[in-house]
């Protein structure tokens, strides 16, 4: 990345003796959609608030479009932000809310009206101009908040868990709408969420955060399939973790529950006799031997959950339990608890957690 649009370099934030963000680094390209994903208290909102100017970094710099904005006040940054709690001004109509930033900037009345109409068209709520926030649903309020944030044409759009307060159905439709508007306008966007599905579905890249640091930054595909750390592997998606012992480091073989699995090229300096944590995604595992799967383990079915189109099966293997999903087939009854079962997988799908 030769010339990043947003560059966050060595940013640290401490509140008294507590450090909530430690040496955070991230470069974001123009027009990119980057999500900060992590559990509560990992520092993702603090980083966003530092980019917005609501918190001043204890150290480090934030550069947008080549200009250092680290010390600028929020109203000098030309950044748009959507808040979790909508934060629409209750005393103003929808049109007045959307036009607020334009009025503050001193735009002529006719231009404000035109821009407000354009924004209402973009968020597909053209008939709502004269309504007050309390007359709108949560989803509508958040769309108005989005329109208000992008109306002044900010350089950067910050979304602080904008979907958290909405119900599941609205959340899915609104996240698709946010992504489509973002792509259409080409606006560089930072999206904070603790919902991995949200982050995976709409981001160009994801920064997975833990303990005030970015554990891994990568595309959703990389984050999900090639997690760099144990935390990322556990936090993103469902993961089955098995203990294995390296039997032959040179040949790359590992013993899992008395069966040999070949992990050539993945052992990364492990020695024979070392104990490793091995991880498999549920979708990488099949019940029974399947063609193309080079490894298998035997166990006993401990739980079966019928979820409609999918059946979630848990299989006890040694001291561990492996979870896997199979599609429902009306012609085949689901497996029974207590049955002996064999699971198969490709050793290339197995992750070694370091």
């Amino acid at each position, binding site marked *: 990345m030769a010339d990043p649009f947003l560059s966050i370099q060595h940013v640290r934030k401490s509140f008294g003796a507590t450090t909530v963000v430690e040496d955070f680094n991230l470069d974001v390209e123009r027009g990119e959609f980057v999500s900060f994903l992590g559990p509560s208290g990992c520092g993702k909102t603090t980083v966003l608030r530092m980019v917005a100017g609501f918190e001043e970094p204890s150290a480090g710099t934030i550069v947008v479009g080549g200009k250092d904005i680290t010390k600028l006040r929020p*109203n000098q940054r030309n950044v748009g932000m959507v808040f979790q709690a909508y934060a629409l001004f209750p005393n103003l109509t929808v049109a007045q809310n959307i036009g607020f930033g334009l009025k503050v900037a001193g735009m002529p009345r006719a231009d404000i009206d035109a821009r407000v109409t354009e924004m209402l068209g973009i968020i597909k709520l053209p008939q709502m101009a004269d309504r007050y926030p309390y007359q709108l649903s949560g989803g509508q309020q958040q769309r108005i908040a989005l329109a208000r944030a992008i109306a002044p044409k900010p350089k950067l759009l910050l979304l602080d868990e904008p979907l958290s307060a909405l119900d599941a159905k609205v959340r899915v439709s609104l996240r698709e709408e946010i992504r489509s508007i973002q792509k259409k306008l080409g606006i560089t966007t930072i999206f904070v969420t603790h919902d991995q599905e949200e982050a995976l579905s709409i981001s160009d890249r994801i920064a997975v955060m833990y303990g005030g640091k970015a554990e891994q930054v990568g595309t959703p595909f990389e984050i999900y399939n090639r997690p760099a750390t144990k935390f990322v592997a556990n936090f993103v998606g469902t993961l089955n973790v098995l203990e294995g012992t390296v039997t032959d480091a040179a040949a790359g073989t590992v013993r899992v529950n008395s069966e040999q699995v070949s992990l050539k090229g993945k052992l990364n300096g492990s020695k024979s006799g070392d104990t490793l944590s091995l991880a498999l995604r549920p979708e990488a595992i099949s019940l029974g031997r399947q063609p193309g799967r080079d490894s298998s383990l035997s166990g006993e079915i401990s739980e079966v959950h019928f979820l409609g189109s999918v059946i979630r099966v848990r299989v006890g293997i040694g001291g561990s339990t492996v979870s896997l999903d199979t599609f429902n087939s009306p012609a085949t009854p689901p497996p029974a608890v207590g049955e002996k079962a064999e699971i198969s997988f490709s050793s290339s799908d197995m992750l070694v957690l370091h």
Partner: protein
Amino acid sequence: MKSGRFWAWVVFIVGAAYFFIPLLATVEFSLRMRRGVHSFDAYQIVLGDPRFQATFLYSVIAAVFTIILGVLVVVPTAYWIRLRLPQLRPIVEFITLLPLVIPAIVIVFGYIRMYGSNSPLPFLGSNMGANALLVIGYATLALPYMYRAVDTGLRTIDVRTLTEAAQILGAGWGTIIGRVILPNVLIAVLSGAFLTFAIVIGEFTMASLLNRPAFGPYLQNIGANRAYEPAALAVIAFAITWGCMSLIQILSRFAPKSANRPN
């Protein structure tokens, strides 16, 4: 259940009687000025008295200035305490309660000693200075009511997020307070304003000891020298106070509604 309801009504009627009987007696007495018939003579005399008009006008003007001073002091203070200094809230609440604990007579004696004509700040050396001191004193007396009204109003809105939303849209502090915060707590501010008005209109101690031609000392003077007119004045003062309370109720219906409190 029925017995409980019966006793509830008994308590309500006794309470209402305790409140209304003296009031009705005062109204009835104020109408007895003309021997043998009920008339509004006492009201005519009171309302036609040039001293009534002058003192009432003086107190209304003093009330308006007190409200302006109170809003200018209390709104930014309560806003800043909520936004940036919540740890100071107990201290500020304690300070705003002091006028309820310290009698007005103690405050006004303190003023006379501090701001007499020989002091470095000789407020009492001129009429304007004394008027200003009276308004400052009234603002102090009204502080517990004004602060609580504004603080309650601020509690109903998400001050921090609304402030940040306005800031990120480019607004400065003046715009934030003037266009975002104040309109959303306007009803609370008006409640505080009407309570202030009611306090100022009937206040006696400060106005009397600072020798100001206010409505309170006039009420006392009439009460000491006349029979029926004080009752008429009491009814008028009561009507003004009730009018203020009714206005608070009416205006609260126009309060900006949040999504969380649609009705």
